[in-house]
């Protein structure tokens, strides 16, 4: 099995400054099949330095699979993933289940794959507002505390790219907004890029640079405003809802049926 994951060469032309446009990770025409079923089809995308990119799409659209391909956890059936050499990634998987039979403290979770000093751990936990949990068992944490701990863990690696798969899962309504705010602050402070999957379209639209709407293939991508008004996006999420998200809404003169064909003209 050959891996499709390659790293860009650090050739002579690569001496340009770390501008806002330096690509950190990109997918080129990535497709993925599993047991005969197409999950991703011909997806291309790039996350550049400093960008916040949000992947949206209905259930089963292949959002998590896309992240896993980008992270190199699975190899694409065709196409390729390119990442900046030695890219430091902080990753928060979708639903982390840790079996209670394995006794782990918050402190221990932080050092599972790396070696960090107690000062570094404490500082990272303070950054995400959960330093008081340092000595506790991970099984006593609430959903929000757990995610903040995992975020602190990702920060320890001093990431250039944060990959977040539905970061507010299991977090209550108030906590959600706070967590998104924290992510935005972290992004500023660490000047890292963020690639996340989110269902929370209101947040997505207000705090992201670029939205990629996928349903196996890329339906549309661009600035939130543009995506909101895109017919494909409206087909997936409902026209009225999409327009309520958009700041500058404008009317389309037609609708699409389920396969995207023009169905009827508006009066």
């Amino acid at each position, binding site marked *: 099995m050959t891996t499709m994951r390659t790293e860009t060469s650090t050739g002579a032309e690569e001496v340009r400054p770390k501008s806002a446009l330096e690509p950190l990770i990109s997918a080129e025409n990535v497709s993925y099949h599993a047991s005969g079923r197409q999950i991703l089809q011909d997806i291309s995308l790039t996350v550049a330095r400093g960008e916040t990119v949000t992947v949206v799409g209905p259930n089963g659209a292949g959002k998590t699979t896309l992240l896993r391909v980008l992270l190199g*956890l699975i190899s694409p059936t065709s196409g390729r993933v390119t990442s900046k050499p030695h890219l430091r990634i902080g990753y928060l998987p979708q639903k982390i289940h*840790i079996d209670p039979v394995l006794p*782990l403290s918050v402190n221990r979770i932080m050092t599972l794959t790396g070696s960090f000093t107690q000062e570094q751990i404490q500082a990272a936990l303070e950054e995400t507002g959960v330093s008081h949990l340092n000595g506790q068992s991970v099984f006593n944490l609430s959903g929000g505390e757990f995610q903040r701990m995992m975020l602190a863990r990702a920060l320890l690696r001093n990431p250039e790219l944060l990959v977040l798969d539905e970061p507010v899962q299991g977090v209550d309504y108030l906590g959600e907004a706070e967590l998104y705010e924290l992510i935005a602050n972290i992004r500023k402070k660490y000047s890292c890029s963020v690639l996340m999957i989110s269902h929370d379209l209101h947040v997505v639209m207000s705090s992201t640079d670029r939205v990629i709407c996928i349903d196996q293939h890329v339906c549309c991508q661009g600035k939130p405003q543009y995506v909101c008004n895109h017919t494909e996006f409206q087909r997936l999420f409902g026209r009225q809802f999409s327009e309520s998200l958009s700041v500058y809404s404008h009317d389309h003169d037609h609708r699409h049926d389920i396969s995207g064909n023009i169905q009827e003209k508006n009066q």
Partner: protein
Amino acid sequence: MTLLDDFLWRAIFAGLGIAIVAGPLGCFVVWRRMAYLGDTMSHSSLLGIAMGFLLQINLILAVFVVAALVAILLFLLQRQKQLAADAILGTLAHASLALGVLAISLMTWIRVDLMSFLFGDILSVEISDLYLIYGSGLIVLLVMLKIWKPLLAITANEELARAEGIPSVPLQLIFMLLIALIIALAMKIVGVLLVTALLIIPATAARRFSKTPEQMAVIAVLIGVASVFIGLFTSLEFDTPSGPSIVISIVLFFFLSFILPAPKTYVLR
């Protein structure tokens, strides 16, 4: 070594060696939810014994080789996603057990005391077995020490560990080989059918008293060591089979762990 001329001392030393190695390994078996996999591998031991007799090689070595092959086969089968893991495990466990009994019964030229293999036999531990147990046991412990941290990382969350650069496949394979080795080593002490008990019950009993993975491993070792002593002396005193006696001692610790108050600072949800 006059001390080791006595069968009881040989049994005690063998049991201690096994208990010390089984503690940390057993914790990972429990953490990784591999209890049934351990069972499947130990059920294949009988086939290993048959092979050992047939090829006239050391039985522990033969059992190790067969258990390792079964482990690798399981590993490969589990990578396909169509059949559930427990169905594959059940199939292989019973296939190898039946095949083992069949093979042994067909070899009419040797007399095999099946009971002693199924449930262990303290009398059968020889000095050469002790060398093998302590030699291999040392290797297992050293390898465990070396892979402890990355194995713990993929055990806590494989996806996350892999994303952070931990290679999970080689670690899993190495761990399975270590289990095959301990199963082969423990066979004479507790018998084919009860080997897994030696791995999982001390670890399970240790859970409530442990705050860290390492604590759990150490407590599991202590429980295992105590059970070997209690079990063997019970076996001697009441003329009961050694394997079941040791296992019952471990089970008593397991129930005791529920009765004893757990340390207050550690509440499980």
